[in-house]
């Protein structure tokens, strides 16, 4: 479904050149839920924007069902971290959900159907006449997710969507996401800095190194399909996976790359400088 090949991104500033992403290659199959996790500043958001077509990579390409992504393609929806700023404040919830559908030239009945279904799927009732700023943060993010669902995308990209809500709301939204994912069979690429969240949600977890970013490991998560906050998070296997990812991220923060052991990392420091 989604093919990311050799993404390389360099930012040219005034006299400064920052290599944000060195080389990222991975695939996401149809209907998969893949999580991307890594240390802060490792270019997760940059990668997501390249995949979404919002940013052009310096090299490499992204393919959605074989078609190269050069601009935001149809069939892709994005949910941002700043839910308050991604909803149009001059439109009601219904207006916000309908706008992308109007762009798709859907008939009025079909739009109403999709909007109602999406709002019900995210557990929101009786809000379609409200304005976004009248709702709580968790509800606003649900509206953003509902808007993405109503759009009927093939791929859903989520950029740390639950980072800005409180812990209890985050737990609810995580479970909501898995429910919605299984119900609609949509492919999800989920970026987060929260290791627990990545392991809890994903079928695979891609661990990114720090900048200039490469993939450290592509880890399959062999937890059962039925997950819930209480039992899954206290399962031994969850703890093992979490610890493994945590170790990788810690190594990443210290500048490690894929496949290096801590011993190999120590060697460069022993070399004589100036060589």
């Amino acid at each position, binding site marked *: 479904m989604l093919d990311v090949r050799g993404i390389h991104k360099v930012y040219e500033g005034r006299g400064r050149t920052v290599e944000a992403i060195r080389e990222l290659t991975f695939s996401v199959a149809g209907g998969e839920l893949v999580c991307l996790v890594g240390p802060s500043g490792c270019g997760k958001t940059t990668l997501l924007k390249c995949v979404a077509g919002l940013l052009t990579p310096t090299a490499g390409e992204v393919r959605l069902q074989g078609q190269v992504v050069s601009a935001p393609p149809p069939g892709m929806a994005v949910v941002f971290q700043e839910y308050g700023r991604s909803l149009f404040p001059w439109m009601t919830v219904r207006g916000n959900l309908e706008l992308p559908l*109007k762009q798709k030239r859907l008939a009025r009945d079909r739009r109403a159907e999709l909007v109602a279904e999406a709002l019900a799927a995210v557990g929101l009732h009786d809000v379609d006449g409200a*304005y976004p*700023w009248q709702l709580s943060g968790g509800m606003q993010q649900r509206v953003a997710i509902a808007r993405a669902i109503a759009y009927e995308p093939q791929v859903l990209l989520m950029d740390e969507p639950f980072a800005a809500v409180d812990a209890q709301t985050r737990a609810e939204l995580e479970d909501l996401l898995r429910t919605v994912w299984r119900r609609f069979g949509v492919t999800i690429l989920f970026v987060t800095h929260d290791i627990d969240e990545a392991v809890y949600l994903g079928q695979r977890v891609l661990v990114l190194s720090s900048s200039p970013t490469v993939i450290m490991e592509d880890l399959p998560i062999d937890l059962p399909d039925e997950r819930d906050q209480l039992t899954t998070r206290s399962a031994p296997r969850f703890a093992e996976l979490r610890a493994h990812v945590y170790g990788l991220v810690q190594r990443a923060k210290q500048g490690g790359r894929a496949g290096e052991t801590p011993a190999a990392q120590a060697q460069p420091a022993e070399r004589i400088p100036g060589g």
Partner: protein
Amino acid sequence: MTAVGRLARRAALALGLPLAIIAVLWVASADSQSFYLPPLRTVLETFADVWLSARLIDDVLPSLLRLAVGYLAAVALGVAIGVPLGASRTVRGVVEPVLEFFRAIPPPVMVPILILIAGIGDIMKVLVIVFGCVWPVLLNTVEGVRAVDPVLDETARCYRIRGLARLRHLVLRGASPQIFTGMRQSLSIGIILMVISEMFASSNGLGFTIIQFQRSFAIPEMWSGIILLGLVGVLLSLAFRAVEGRVLAWYYSLRRSHRGEPTG
């Protein structure tokens, strides 16, 4: 307090100071012998004779029509130029120096030039109004368009909201609070220019009539005209607020909610 009671209270507060001022002036000027400052009573007596007559149709109406045409044209022009300027830094860099040049010219100074270009008819007067009113709208539109939230912009791009739809739903609505600020300033300027445009080479109009009275030393009539001008300003301002209240209802509620006040 009931809704009627609240409205009555607000009306009382709004009218309180004007009525007080009128009362003080009435009493203070009652015995005035000055030629240039007649008693308020005399002025108000002439008001009805002068204005509640054919003059309403022959003078006041044409003035207001010219103001309406000039103002609306200025708003349309200001927004039409302001949007591309606000959207592109390159365009701004190229066009802004020229704009700054023309903006610095006071519209009254342009009147003789506009008479040469457009004659002495209605078109010239409308052009004077447009020339003065376009600037606040244009500059505020540029600011409003520049300040569109980048997250909202990316959201629109992701959902492939482009072209006319993007202009309508993202750019114009997002910039509308700022644009209305400019429109409010332009309205005040427009009323002033409406009078100034009629000072030279005119044959009808509210401003023209007031100047005529001034030149023929019909002082109470002149003062009554000035009072009418003030009333026109108040009424137009109220009308503007009513429109703004409808269009920007979402914005005022949003601000109230941010301040923690009830948004009703």
